[in-house]
């Protein structure tokens, strides 16, 4: 893989950008990844040659657009190894996918029921469940974490009252890979459903929803080298059929009269309105791109980057890693003793280095560590060891100015 990085980088024109007069070092991949030319071209090609509304017209162009859209669905199915493409719903993103499930559960939950989420969740996997609990009278329970940023999982957190467990596969703030296989097995033993937020897993390694036995699995297109505004909700057929629809509108109905509407079968029941065809087609191309590089290659290369960054940053006096789980993916959160993360971020930006600073939409994690935020470097397949060196030099330079 290392031999191919130069040619991979060639496919991402934005990586040649200058920031503040310095070559861009893009280490904010957990927030969003950059797009290879072939993804941008696939979208342009779609609009230039195949665009029309889907599932509606008898005319050829509509058929063509529909076919491309449904091929994208099939590509996502294959990527996640879902049993059927009916189980793949296109959404606006990961947040939208989680809201689709949470708002359906809001109508299924009753007072006395419990929803279990974890201390490590992104706000996107907290707030929708809080809303569902508030409106249904169910209560929200939290899987605790330890000082390494690992979940303290125990099956005793579950009971017959637990209706659904929602946890992320990988934490966006700390990079922790959570023991979801175990959580899913334990939850199923008490007949609770499980939603896995895969926003930070899908960019880095392959996911097999059938092996995991997840009932719902969600992710965003823009974090897997695809376009913004598209995401995926995978749900097992029986769960999607049981779940009430999220939004009403065109495309999601079978028949409409003013007294009663019957809903279309899945996946269309959850895709009200004209879908994001261009987004789905761009996502299809992005998944092809990842497969061409090879998900195993991506995972092992990014692990090398992570390890190297960990070793090199450790040499900096006063550095403190937040999140030191045994099992991590592609994310390094840290603080420099005596320096506010915002200040470090501002100075790194002056050197052309893009990192994220702040609470990363995970305020409960920051509260646990009693910190205002962290500096987070997150790696993608196109990052290099030299860029890690630049980060290390940048952090040292910032520290010398600030502390």
């Amino acid at each position, binding site marked *: 893989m290392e031999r191919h990085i130069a040619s991979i980088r060639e496919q991402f024109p934005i990586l040649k950008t200058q920031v503040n007069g310095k070559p861009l070092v893009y280490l904010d991949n957990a927030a969003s990844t950059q797009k290879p030319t072939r993804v941008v071209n696939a979208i342009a090609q779609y609009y230039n040659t195949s665009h029309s509304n889907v599932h509606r017209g008898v005319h050829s162009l509509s058929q063509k657009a529909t076919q491309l859209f449904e091929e994208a669905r099939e590509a996502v199915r294959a990527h996640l190894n879902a049993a059927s493409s009916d189980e793949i719903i296109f959404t606006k993103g990961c947040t939208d996918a989680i809201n689709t499930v949470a708002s359906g559960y809001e109508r299924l939950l009753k007072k006395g029921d419990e929803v279990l989420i974890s201390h490590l969740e992104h706000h996107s996997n907290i707030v929708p469940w809080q809303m569902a609990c508030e409106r249904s009278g169910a209560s929200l329970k939290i899987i605790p974490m330890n000082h390494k940023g690992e979940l303290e999982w125990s099956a005793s957190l579950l009971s017959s009252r637990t209706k659904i467990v929602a946890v992320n596969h990988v934490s966006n703030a700390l990079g922790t890979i959570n023991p979801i296989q175990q959580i899913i097995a334990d939850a199923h033993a008490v007949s609770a459903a499980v939603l896995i937020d895969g926003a930070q897993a899908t960019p880095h390694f392959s996911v097999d929803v059938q092996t995991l036995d997840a009932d719902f699995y969600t992710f965003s297109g823009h974090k897997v080298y695809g376009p913004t505004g598209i995401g995926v909700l995978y749900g097992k057929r029986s769960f999607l059929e049981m779940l009430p629809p999220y939004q009403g509108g065109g495309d999601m109905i079978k028949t409409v009269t003013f007294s009663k509407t019957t809903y279309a079968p899945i996946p269309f029941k959850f895709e009200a309105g004209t879908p994001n065809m261009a987004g789905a087609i761009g996502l299809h191309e992005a998944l092809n791109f990842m497969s061409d590089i090879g998900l195993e290659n991506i995972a092992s290369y990014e692990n090398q980057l992570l390890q190297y960054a960990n070793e090199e940053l450790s040499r900096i006096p006063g550095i403190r890693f937040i999140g030191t789980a045994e099992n991590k993916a592609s994310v390094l959160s840290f603080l420099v003793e005596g320096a*506010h993360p915002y*200040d470090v*971020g*501002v100075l790194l930006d*002056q050197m052309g280095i893009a990192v994220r*600073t*702040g*609470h990363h939409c995970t305020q409960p994690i920051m509260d646990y560590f009693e910190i205002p935020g962290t500096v987070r470097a997150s790696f993608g397949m196109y990052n290099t060891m030299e860029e890690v060196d630049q980060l290390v030099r940048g952090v040292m330079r910032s520290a010398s*100015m600030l502390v």
Partner: protein
Amino acid sequence: MTIQEIQSEIEEEFGFFDDWMDKYEHLIGLGKDLPLIDPQFKTEEHIIKGCQSQVWLHAELEDGKLFYTADSDAIITKGVISLLIRSFNAQTPDAILEASTDFIDRIGLKDHLSPTRANGLVSMVKQMKFYALAFKAQKQNT
């Protein structure tokens, strides 16, 4: 000196730096020298919450002129605060209400005063003017 004169002076001062590091080192130095807010005012009431960093601001009127003190948890934010305070301090409410903060753009620190930075500074400028307005109203009522 008028606010404008002070701001031109700051611009001139920053004009000496052509290297970003020197500029930021100067800014960090100014941040460290900021006239700090009295701990008794470092309360919820005086906090301006940004997503990235937060700011505390207090103002007092003396002989018809405003005096600000402030603090922030981030030192670069404090540096920018110190520039704003230096340009507004010992001025009348009317002068402050009319003043602009464009000098921040001209010394190349525009990004720090942008709403997308979420560092609390945009709200702080509003709050500084709000104090001026409040003192002006108070004066008119007495």
